[in-house]
């Protein structure tokens, strides 16, 4: 509901979250909406990060995948000539069309002056901490307030052995603990909680407490501690008590209806536009589905066939270019390529 929209931002999202699938570099460009995002994040929602969970002296190499799917029915913009439109940047003064390397990032001071910062300068700040997710603290799972939870991830074991991964998952799950760590991912520091369930590890990045308002800062009246004798609300709630979450009730019917409408119109051949494949090259949003299930199955399974991958493939994945997105939409196979990727993914999105 309070998602940000840029001025000339054309996303016009079909209900689902406007936030990107990857952890946004929050110190960059929200205010200017898509303009800033497009430049800093390149194309496509692709969160893929590799690192090492450490607890004590034990290291658990992992790959991190988003636990939330990309938008199901992204709306695109079509021009009068039947072509998909592209976003371009212009100087607001001389109306000149700008390429990415003619654009810089400026921080505006209250007096209206700007300090220009480069990506290199920002990147130099981040990796001061290592890329380890160092679990220095384990807390009871129910101590983590939902309001802090930001982006969820699934952690797949990487490296040649799942032993340490399985040990950590097993032990955390049995003790009902969550691990807390700060770590650096894609050029930004995150606070994260690591969860274990069903033998698998998951993670969630968390908001820092100063990113949340408090009842006091909002100006809510002081909470009343002593209970009244009126239990009518509690009784009403108890009547609605159920054992489990009803996932059907949490379905996104709007997007279903939108997709059904689009398919019906296609079947009736109404308002259908065929667009040549090559226009796709410059799409700002493409379905980028990493099949987490098959990644997990492969890596948790006993028979993990070590596939050979060329150095080129590993290097490719670290790029953010448009042409790479198709390659990256395939499930990743083999631990060798993963290790190479690990070296290559430290760059920003």
């Amino acid at each position, binding site marked *: 509901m309070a998602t940000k929209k840029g001025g000339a931002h054309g996303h016009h999202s079909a*209900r689902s979250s406007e936030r990107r699938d990857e952890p946004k570099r929050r110190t960059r460009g929200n205010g200017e909406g898509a303009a800033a995002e497009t430049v800093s994040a390149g194309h496509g929602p692709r969160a893929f990060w590799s690192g090492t969970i450490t607890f004590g002296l034990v290291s658990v190499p992992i790959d991190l995948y988003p636990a939330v799917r990309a938008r199901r029915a992204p709306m695109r913009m079509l021009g*009068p000539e039947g072509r998909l439109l592209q976003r371009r940047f212009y100087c607001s003064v001389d109306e000149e069309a700008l390429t990415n390397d003619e654009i810089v990032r400026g921080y505006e001071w209250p007096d209206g002056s700007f300090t220009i910062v480069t990506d290199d300068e920002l990147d130099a700040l981040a990796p001061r901490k290592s890329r380890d997710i160092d679990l220095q603290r384990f807390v009871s799972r129910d101590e983590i307030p939902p309001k802090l939870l930001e982006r969820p991830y699934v952690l797949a074991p990487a490296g040649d052995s799942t032993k340490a991964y399985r040990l950590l998952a097993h032990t955390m799950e049995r003790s009902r603990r969550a691990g807390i760590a700060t770590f650096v991912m894609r050029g930004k520091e995150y606070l994260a909680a690591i969860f274990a369930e069903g033998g698998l590890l998951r993670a969630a990045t968390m908001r820092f*407490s100063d990113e949340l308002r408090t009842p006091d800062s909002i100006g809510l009246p002081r909470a009343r501690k002593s209970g009244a004798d009126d239990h009518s609300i509690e009784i009403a709630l108890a009547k609605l008590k159920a054992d489990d979450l009803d996932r059907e009730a949490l379905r996104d019917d709007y997007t279903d209806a939108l997709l059904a409408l689009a398919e019906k119109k296609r079947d009736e051949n109404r308002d259908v536009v065929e667009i040549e494949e090559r226009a796709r090259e410059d799409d700002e949003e493409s379905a980028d589905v990493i099949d987490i299930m098959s990644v997990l199955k492969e890596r948790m399974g006993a028979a993990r066939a070590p596939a050979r991958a060329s150095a080129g493939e590993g290097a490719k994945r670290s790029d953010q270019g448009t042409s790479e997105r198709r390659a990256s939409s395939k499930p990743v196979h083999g631990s060798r390529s993963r290790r190479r990727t690990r070296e290559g993914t430290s760059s920003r999105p």
Partner: protein
Amino acid sequence: MTTRAMWKAEVDIEDLRIPVKLYAAVADASVHFRLLHAKDHAPVKQQMVDPETDEPVAPEAIRRVIEVDRGTYVVIKPEEQAALEPKPSRSIAVERVVSADKIDERWFDRPYYLGPDGDDDAYFDLARALEKNSWIAIAHWAMRKKRYAGALYGSDGYLLLDTLRSTQDVVQIESIRPPAEGAPDPREIKLAEQLIGTLEDRFDAAAYKDEYREQVLALLEAKSRGKVVRFPKAARRKPTDSLLRDLQASLKGGRRASGGD
């Protein structure tokens, strides 16, 4: 300083009506940058252009399309989209109540505070009832032409309403189970439990600061004074080669057995 309410509503539980106001719980703390033209530092604006002609297209000439098959798009007209929008309503309807542990971290999207709007007693009773029982009430509502599902819960005596992600969007991995073979060794489990035990603590959100954000601000201030700032890079650790040895060494508080930093 107080915050403006975003929306007025009522929480409906069976035939009870509790008037509330809704407030964003997330305060934007990020450092915002503007995109500027490198040459003259004028702000950058964006426009949609036809990629063949490079001509900007006026907003009213733009149609919205959804891709139904690869390369096949269907135009969705504004009135068609509007017909799918929910009717305006003030009701945050509670439909189900579950224990807090029935909803994991994948579902929670954005938190909002609810505040009382005329009936403080009912508001605080509701907050207390949910918090005391560790219950989360699942609610649905429509706001600003969108439907939402949310988790209503009590925290420090107040009500929070977090929007929930949809079933289609949350990746389900429940069907995957680790194979029976290769289960952790009982000795290693014991040591790992001890190790986790030594690291057990209360969760204190206030103990964590976004140091990166602070560094970005420090960089900006230094630059505005004309200073050059450099920071060292960190190395990564080497993988574990002996789990048992590392666990034992960790418990002794010793140095890393298999090398690294």
